[in-house]
């Protein structure tokens, strides 16, 4: 089983494109997708949509998504949108 780790860095547009790329690259992955959000301080609506697209794509392939280094502010956004149950979290 292989794990794909995606480091999300840069501005909000970069984050979206990295998420979109990740959603398209799940074919070779058999275990889990780890998204490293350590440098992400804020997520916007577009980023959230990309994240939800990735969740859907991962669900189709029965992949688990783990978020690593999620800031408190971003965690609160995910909580308000009831998305936290869709992920595992690593500190």
């Amino acid at each position, binding site marked *: 089983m292989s794990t794909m780790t995606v480091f999300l860095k840069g501005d909000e547009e970069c984050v979206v494109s990295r998420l979109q790329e990740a959603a398209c690259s799940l074919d070779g992955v058999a275990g889990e997708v780890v998204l490293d959000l350590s440098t992400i301080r804020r*997520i*916007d609506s*577009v980023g959230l949509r990309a994240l939800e697209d990735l969740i859907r794509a991962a669900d189709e392939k029965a992949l688990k998504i783990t978020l690593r280094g999620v800031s408190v*502010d971003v965690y609160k*956004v995910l909580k*308000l949108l009831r998305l936290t149950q869709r992920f595992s979290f690593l500190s």
Partner: protein
Amino acid sequence: MATTEEIKERIEIPLIAETLTTERIAYLEGLVGQAKTAAAVFTQFTQEDVDRIVKAMALAGLEHAQHLARLAVEETKLGVMEDKVIKNMVACEFVYNYVKDKRTVGVIRELTDRNLSEIAEPIGVLFSLTPITNPTSTVLFKCLVAVKTRNAVVFSPHPKAWHCCAEAVKVMYETAVKHGGPEGVFTCVESPNLADNAYLMKHKDVGLIDATGGPGVVKAAYSSGKPALGVGPGNTPVYLEKTADLSSAVVDIIVSKTFDNGTICASEQTVVIDDEIYDAALKKFAELGAHICNEKETRILERGVIDPQTGFMQPMAVGQKATDIARFIGLSVKPNTKLLIAPIQGVGSDHPLSVEKLFPVLAVYRAKSVTDALKVCIDVNHAGGLGHTAVVFSRNDEVIRKFGEVINAGRIIVNSPGSIGALGAVYNDLVPTFSFGCGTGGGNSTTDNVNIHHYLNIKRQARRTQNHMWFRVPNQIYFNMNAVENLRQFQSSCTIVVTNASLERIGHVDIVRRNICPKTHVHVMVIPDAEPENKVISQSVETLNFYKPDQIIALGGGSVIDAAKIMKLKYVSPEADLEYLAAPFLDLRKRVVEYPTEKANHARLIAIPTTSGTGSEVTPFAVLIDKEHGRKVTLADYSLTPDVAIVDPQFVMSMPRGLTADTGIDCLTHALEAGVSNYASPYTDSSAVQAIRLVFTYLPIAYTHPHDEEARCMMHNAACIAAMAFSNASVGVNHALAHAFGARFGVAHGRANALMLPHVMAYNAAVPTKFMPSPYSQGYVAHKKYATVSDLLALGGHTTEEKVKNLIAATEQLLDQLDFPRSIAELGISKDEFERIVPELAKTAFDDPSWRSNPRMPLMSELVELFWKAYEGRNAAEVSSPKRQTV
């Protein structure tokens, strides 16, 4: 001008709820979903982010003010375009000016003196209904306030004002997003209807409904089960009082009532004018363009603008010009008429024009007096205007004040136009708004002008406060052998010595008399050697009033000193009601009753104890026996504390052995309980520890060698020092148990304390079943404090548990040395009798205030258990040991 039917249709929201289709539900869910995401994203925004967006939105609103006003008038056919421009500008500029420097993100207020911080939490998604009368201005206002508070809004404009509102939402939304605002922050329901509104009002993701509109909308919002701000109709009374500046008042009323053709619900409805200025006022109104209706015209006006069936205004008149209304109903007026004024003789259904009229028609009433005027204003206020707005024009502050008191309105506007005045920030310093809270009178939750604070959850972060504590003792304490000689320094013209017969008989009173300042008239008052009763106090106070002493010397044990304290209280403050002053309390500084401060007489109280236990010479307590009701009354106040204490061991050298033991253990109990009390402080700890050390060292000697001066002296000091500790830290559950048991079985206080003491120590040292809430202490430390005492007494032990055990064992050993009965059973009380009485004892102990400062909150079952342990006696340390746990 539109026809009645056309305008009626425009004003009223369709009343028939439609069933929502699946597609419609999906559409509405989409709107809420967008708003929900926007609100979540918004939580990450800083104050600077928000302020930047708000400023850009305010500028955009100002830029589009005229365009939006024109759209509103074209679509609704209500109001005046020029006035709507002003309203739009006020909604942007004045609201921006109010909110711009206000913090709405993170900590918004620090109350450093109270250790409180207020932190803003956005609500999330708001569902907002906006009215036809003020459509675009309300939208602009709500958008600014929502962004300032990081909320997203789903708008449902009045269907007949939808296009202009949607345009206003679009302007605000595009500006917000352009400047970094979250996508979906504002959405607008297309073709909204009642079913949509009902669905959205109950949507789980909607946090707050902000309904501005008619009574139906407001009622629906409040009935939805969601938190709601509902702002509905008014009926503004105006009192034009005879001292008012008439010229200014008339202009203000015309400005306000004609503004946007009277569509603002805060506008004037009935002007009550004092008789003295009534004619002059109407003349001025007429001069400035008002048409004053005669009786016949008034009838025509009533029929034309008020629906005779409902008693409410005709929708066709709302927001129309005075001349158009006149033409429509067949009144002949001048072409430049601004306002139609109709005299009325009262308020209610017989006077149709006394209701709300959102058009330039004003009722006027001639008042015969201020009382008459205020009554009519109250009537108008209660005829549909409760909680909303009222106006008074007067130069008489008393009239203005009275008007404010009797009228129930969230906004009481003084000497300025009602409608614009109520909007705030133009004529006064009210918070600018387009939503008037009408309080409970209007079925609303607030009387405020709605603004940012109503769009926030304000969280209060309360840091633990360091409560002020105290250490209060008499100003002067003289101690050691012959300390009584210090009496000489106290000048007095008349001194009363309060004592009992036995002390007089053994010569103690003579010793005192010899040491009183020469030339002092001295009178000796002998009272019974028992806890003071009401009757004794009354008689004694009569004696004091006869002699008018400036000094009272209490020579005796606790009872005599307590009696003297109460006598002094009644002598100095004759109005003191002892029963009232004995009311229960939890915290001395916060109690409800206040001790009298006015003094009819002045007298110094000097206490000379003749036992070494109660410490009454330095305490603020006094116990009184209320024989009539068969109870003890405890008075507690630092004003009861004697002014001077003389702790002279010569007065205790002849104390019997039994009394020495009883009072000595009372002293030890005071110190041990004060030491572990929740009110303990470093000040009381030092006293408590020293007293404990003195008792363990000298009580056995004083008991076995009563003439040992050093032992007597040290025990006398110990009693006083322990009392200083418990005067300020209080006692605990041991005293509660001893009071209940001692009173029931007639056992001396010290002896009763001794029976309970080892068991209570073990109980307090164990992990509490229930912790006692106490702002004065940090953590549970009773066991550690016992261990510290154990160390000071060099009792050995390595762990806290061992040290506690050793202290309890040492206490038990001391009790044995003093020949105390070590169980209640030893007193000859049968198990059956005790079993019968224990529940009552536990109840009495629970009612005793002594345990309120105990480190462990006693459960009723624990009090029963403690009584049984005392009944069986001995081995408290052994029994307690298995229950010790690490805290």
